[in-house]
């Protein structure tokens, strides 16, 4: 969108390291994930190859991150694991946006009873401690990565409802809106021309930050056994599998977790950087 290109150029001069570093990292990760079959040293390991004779080897030049308890190259597994994590990120945020944005627009615009009902429901959702709702939902739907993504998305969409509603309210009260309506411009156009562009920024920032947290939450669910299940390759799952071996063979737990950490960290830095660029504070 034109309105955001210019500030990004300005930002490139002001926030070089952190922002671009993290964006770069994510780009690299995305590439690796997409082209995993071509870029990893032992792609066969990702489809269940077992090499018992190579099990639990420490990191070396041949196996950058070492091997796990059935001899698979952990570096390869970590790269493949990025796929599911990135899918989780986009899945959760995508579904949450799909649910949250329209509801927020409706709530802010219609006002009155509709708004009240929607906001109360959102408050009820947000009254649960985090992770409890996703756990309950995953339990209800059955443990699988897909269900974990849906569960987390359904638990989180109320945040977006809030953001959008706040945006609508802020715009609604602006004098130029009264002027527009006095000139007879329809509500729909106002929503489209004013509310959506103004909401773009805070939603984008929140979404970027949420991608990181989505990955963390889904990995957490996989860790307890409610998310991805074997033979899927997922970072949280890898960590939980390593519980038998991690005390004596540290690399089996270390690298998947490191990957999680760096990815989430990168999303956070990007989100914070975006926030600085677009110069928005929290809109709640």
């Amino acid at each position, binding site marked *: 969108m034109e309105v955001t290109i210019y500030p990004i150029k300005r930002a490139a001069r002001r926030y070089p390291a952190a922002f671009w570093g993290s964006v770069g990292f994510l780009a690299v990760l995305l590439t690796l994930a997409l082209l995993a079959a071509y870029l990893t040293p032992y792609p066969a390991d990702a489809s269940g190859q077992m090499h018992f004779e190579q099990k639990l080897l420490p990191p070396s030049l041949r196996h950058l991150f070492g091997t796990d308890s059935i001899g698979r190259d952990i570096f390869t597994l970590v790269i493949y694991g990025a796929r599911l994590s990135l899918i989780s990120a986009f899945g959760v945020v995508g579904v949450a946006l799909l649910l949250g944005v329209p509801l927020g627009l409706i709530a802010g615009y219609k006002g009155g009873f509709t708004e009240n009902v929607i906001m109360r429901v959102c408050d009820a959702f947000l*009254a649960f401690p985090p992770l409890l709702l996703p*756990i309950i939902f995953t339990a209800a739907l059955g443990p699988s990565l897909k269900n974990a993504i849906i569960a987390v998305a359904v638990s989180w969409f109320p945040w977006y409802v809030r953001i959008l509603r706040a945006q609508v309210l802020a715009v609604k009260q602006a004098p130029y809106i009264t002027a527009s309506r006095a000139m007879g411009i329809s509500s729909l156009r106002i929503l489209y021309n004013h509310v959506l562009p103004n909401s773009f920024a805070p939603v984008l920032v929140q979404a970027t930050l949420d991608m990181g947290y989505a990955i963390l939450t889904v990995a*957490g669910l996989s860790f*307890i056994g409610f998310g991805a299940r074997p033979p899927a390759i997922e970072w949280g799952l890898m960590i939980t599998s390593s519980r038998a071996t991690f005390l004596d063979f540290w690399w089996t737990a*270390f690298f*998947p977790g490191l990957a999680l*950490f760096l990815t989430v960290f990168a999303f956070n830095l990007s989100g914070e950087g975006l926030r600085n660029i677009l110069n928005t504070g929290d809109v709640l």
Partner: protein
Amino acid sequence: MGVAYFIRRFFWSLFVIFAVALVAFVLVRVLPGDPIAAWVGDHPTQEQIDRARSELGYDQPVYIQAVKYFSRLMRGDLGVSLRTRRPVWDEIRRRFAATFELTTFAMLITLLLGAPIGLAAANHPGHWLSRTEKALSLTGVAIPIFWLGMLLQMYFSGSLNWLPLQGQRALPKPDKIYSGLLLLDTLFNGEFDKFADALQHILMPALTLVAATFGIITRTVRNAAAQTLNQDYIRTAHAYGIRRRTVLYVYVLKNILIPLITVSGLVYGYLLGGTFLVERVFDWPGLGQLAVLSILTDDLPAVTGVALVYAVVYTFINYVLDVIYAGVDPRLRKSA
């Protein structure tokens, strides 16, 4: 306005709990696992199945089940666990103290460490403390809790052998139970060996929780303090010749209490959420472990019970914080 506000908040809290119970009721019916099968075990006869069904109440129409469910809830009866055949409430009661102790201990550390550091960082921008704090808080929120826990285990338990790997205690229970909280009870009893043991066991899980939430507190305090320091009334306080320390520790402190209290509720929620993961890693005998266990064994009454307890605790804590908040900010209490 004052009292009306609290009554309104109270009823809202009740409503939330009701909503949670309803959601739990609905979800539990939707769970694919078959509660009957969990009750009767393998190879049941038809007669056993029918008996189980009527015992558990699944032969009634849904709305009657709902009514029974809520009326039992009112009486505090959470049903019988399918896994252990014992009342859910018993199990919850035993484990509640463990989780509560862990989360409260972590919360205290987070506040006691985080607030002063945030204050110091606001007072001396650019200082190494301020930059370290920034780095730490950014890191803390991005770290997977369960991974951090395992890293701590690897290092402090595996390598250094300073702390025990898992569990809440290695020594027997304290002789007399006062609060249900291990640390307090062992202290009251004067059983210092058991106290040390309990402390050693709680340290790693608590620190794991602290690491994840520490950054939120320091960042909130730092931002609030920086903002407060910019206010006119701080400048006028200096203009009247009030001591710097008074200004800082009396004025600024009270002014940052409000955002701090607000964020503490959020932080406690994260801590509660974190217990599912941390209790797993450290084999901590708390509610989180119970929740996971119950779900994996399709123990519906237990799942409902635990979910309810979590929601009640969280709501209650937020309510208490609201009360404290009103105590701090007079604008909420008086009719303005």
